[in-house]
C-alpha cells in the first residue's frame, strides 16, 4: 500500500532513535495555504514518512506521516496510550495534566475495552440515525439565528458552536434550561490558562453531573446518562466517579471537534465554489462530501501520541521499545499511495477511509453521530441559503492555528 517502502531502512540494521539527528522540532505551524498542513510536515512526509523529531521536553520521538504508518501506530497493541509512561511523547514539556489521566483516551487493552463498550452501545449507527430529526431541528433553530443576525453574520458563533453542543446536551441528557450554565463550565474547563480556574471548573462539572446522576437514580430517563445509570451503575459495573468521568469527557470530546469541522468545512466549500455548486446540484453527494472534507482539512494539530511497549515495525522503520511516536492523520490523509491527487478537494471522491476519526481501538466512538451532524448542517445550510458566500471574499480567513484543533475563529457570511 505504501509508496515509501522502497526507501525504507532494513529493520535489522535500523539505527536507534537517540543516535539520529532530529529532522524537526515538534510541533510546526507555518502553512503555505490555509487548508494545507504545515509545510515542514508535507516536505518531510514525502522524504521520510517515519522521521525522528525532537519534542518540547528534548526527548526524541518518531513522527509518522504515511497512511500505512499511522494505521499501524493506532491499531498495533504494542503501542500504548498510557500518558504516565516516561517515553510517552510530551508536546508541552510540562507534566501530564491530572485531568487527562485515567480517561478513556489514556487506557489500554482490556480495561479500555471494558469501559469503552458502555459508550459504544449509546453511539451506534442506528442510535445516530434516530437522532436525525432532533439534529435537523437544532440546526434549523441555529440557522434562524444566523438569518436574524443578517448578512455579514458570523457562522462560527451562530451555527458551528451551537449545534454540536446542543446535540451533545440532548444525547447525554442535559436539560435545555441548563445549556448556558453547562457550556460556560465546559468553556472554562477547556480554555482556562490558569490551572486553579480549571480545577474549580472541573469540580463544578463533577458536582453538576452528580446531580444529574442522582436524578436518573430516581427517574427513568431515555438519555445516555439514564441508560448508563440503569445498565452499569445500578449493577455495580461502573462506579459513580467513572460514570461521571465517562460522561463529561464524551461531551467535551464531541463538541469542539464537530464545531471546528463545521466552521472549517463551510469555509473550504465557500473557497471552492465549483465543489459547492456540485453539492447544491447533487445533494446525494453530501455524505461522501462530509468524509472528503474530513480527509482534506488538517484539523488535528498535534497528532496522536503513543509509546512503544515492544519493538514494532512501522512502515519499514523499527521503533524500539520505550520510544514515543506521534501519528499525524492530516498527513496520512494526503498520502498519494492511498488518495489520488490528495491535495485536491473533490466531493465526488470516496474518502471513507480517512484517518481524522483515528483508527483502531481508540477511534472516535461517536463517528456516526459526527458524520450525521455534519451532513445535516452542511445540507440545511446550502438549502436554506442558496446564495451563501463569504462576506469578504478577498480577506484572509481568520484562523486559530496554534491550538489543539486548527480552526476558523470567525466566518462572516452573506447571502
Amino acid at each position, binding site marked *: 500500500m505504501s509508496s515509501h517502502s522502497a526507501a525504507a531502512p532494513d529493520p535489522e540494521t535500523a539505527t536507534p532513535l537517540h543516535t539520529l539527528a532530529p529532522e524537526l522540532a515538534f510541533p510546526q505551524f507555518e502553512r503555505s495555504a490555509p487548508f494545507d498542513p504545515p509545510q515542514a510536515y508535507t516536505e518531510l512526509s514525502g522524504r521520510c514518512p517515519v522521521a525522528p523529531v525532537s519534542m518540547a521536553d528534548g526527548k526524541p520521538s518518531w513522527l509518522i506521516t504515511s497512511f500505512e504508518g499511522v*494505521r499501524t501506530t*493506532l*491499531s498495533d497493541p504494542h503501542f500504548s496510550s498510557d500518558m504516565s509512561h516516561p517515553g510517552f511523547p510530551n508536546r508541552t514539556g510540562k507534566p501530564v495534566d491530572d485531568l487527562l489521566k485515567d480517561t478513556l483516551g489514556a487506557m489500554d487493552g482490556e480495561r479500555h*475495552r471494558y469501559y*469503552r*463498550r458502555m*459508550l*459504544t*452501545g*449509546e*453511539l*451506534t*449507527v*442506528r442510535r445516530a440515525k434516530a437522532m436525525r430529526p432532533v439534529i435537523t431541528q437544532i440546526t434549523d433553530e441555529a440557522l434562524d439565528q444566523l438569518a436574524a443576525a443578517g448578512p455579514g453574520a458570523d457562522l462560527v458563533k451562530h451555527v458551528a458552536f451551537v449545534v454540536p453542543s446542543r446535540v451533545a446536551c440532548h444525547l447525554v441528557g442535559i436539560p435545555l434550561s441548563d445549556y448556558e450554565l453547562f457550556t460556560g463550565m465546559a468553556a472554562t474547563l477547556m480554555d482556562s490558562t490558569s490551572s486553579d480556574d480549571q480545577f474549580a471548573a472541573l469540580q463544578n462539572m463533577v458536582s453538576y453531573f452528580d446531580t444529574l446522576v442522582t436524578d436518573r437514580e430516581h427517574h427513568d430517563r431515555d438519555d445516555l446518562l439514564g441508560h448508563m445509570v440503569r445498565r452499569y451503575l445500578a449493577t455495580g459495573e461502573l462506579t459513580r466517579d467513572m460514570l461521571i468521568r465517562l460522561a463529561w469527557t464524551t461531551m467535551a470530546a464531541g463538541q469542539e471537534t464537530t464545531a471546528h469541522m463545521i466552521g472549517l468545512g463551510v469555509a473550504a466549500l465557500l473557497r471552492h465554489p465549483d465543489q459547492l455548486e456540485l453539492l447544491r446540484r447533487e445533494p446525494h453527494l453530501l455524505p461522501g462530501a462530509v468524509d472528503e472534507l474530513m480527509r482534506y482539512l488538517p484539523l488535528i494539530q498535534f497528532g496522536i501520541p503513543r509509546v512503544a511497549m515492544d519493538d514494532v515495525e512501522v512502515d519499514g522503520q523499527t521503533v524500539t521499545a520505550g520510544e514515543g511516536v506521534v501519528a499525524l492523520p492530516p498527513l496520512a490523509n494526503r498520502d498519494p499511495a492511498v488518495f489520488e491527487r490528495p491535495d485536491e478537494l473533490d466531493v465526488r471522491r470516496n474518502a*471513507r*477511509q480517512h484517518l481524522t476519526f483515528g*483508527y*483502531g*481501538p481508540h*477511534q472516535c*466512538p461517536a*463517528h*456516526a453521530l459526527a*458524520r450525521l451532524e455534519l451532513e445535516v448542517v452542511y445540507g440545511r445550510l446550502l438549502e436554506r441559503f442558496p446564495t451563501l458566500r463569504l462576506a469578504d471574499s478577498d480577506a484572509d480567513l481568520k484562523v486559530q492555528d496554534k491550538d489543539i484543533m486548527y480552526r476558523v475563529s470567525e466566518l462572516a457570511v452573506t447571502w
Partner: protein
Amino acid sequence: MVKVNIDRDRCYGLGQCVLAAPDVFDQDDDGIVWLLVEEARPEQHDEVRQAALACPRQAIGVAD
C-alpha cells in the same frame, strides 16, 4: 453469493461495517456487530468487501 462471518469477540463496536453495508451489518445494545443476513446478495458484494477492509479489528470474514 458470498458468505459473511463475524468474530464478535474481536469486534470493538466501531460501526465501520454498518456504515459500509447497512443492509448486512447492525450493532447490538453494546455496539457489537451482528449480521442481518448470512449470505450477501451479488449487489451487496462490494459493500461487504468494503466493510471487511474498513474494520480496524479484522472482525469480518468474507468467503466466496
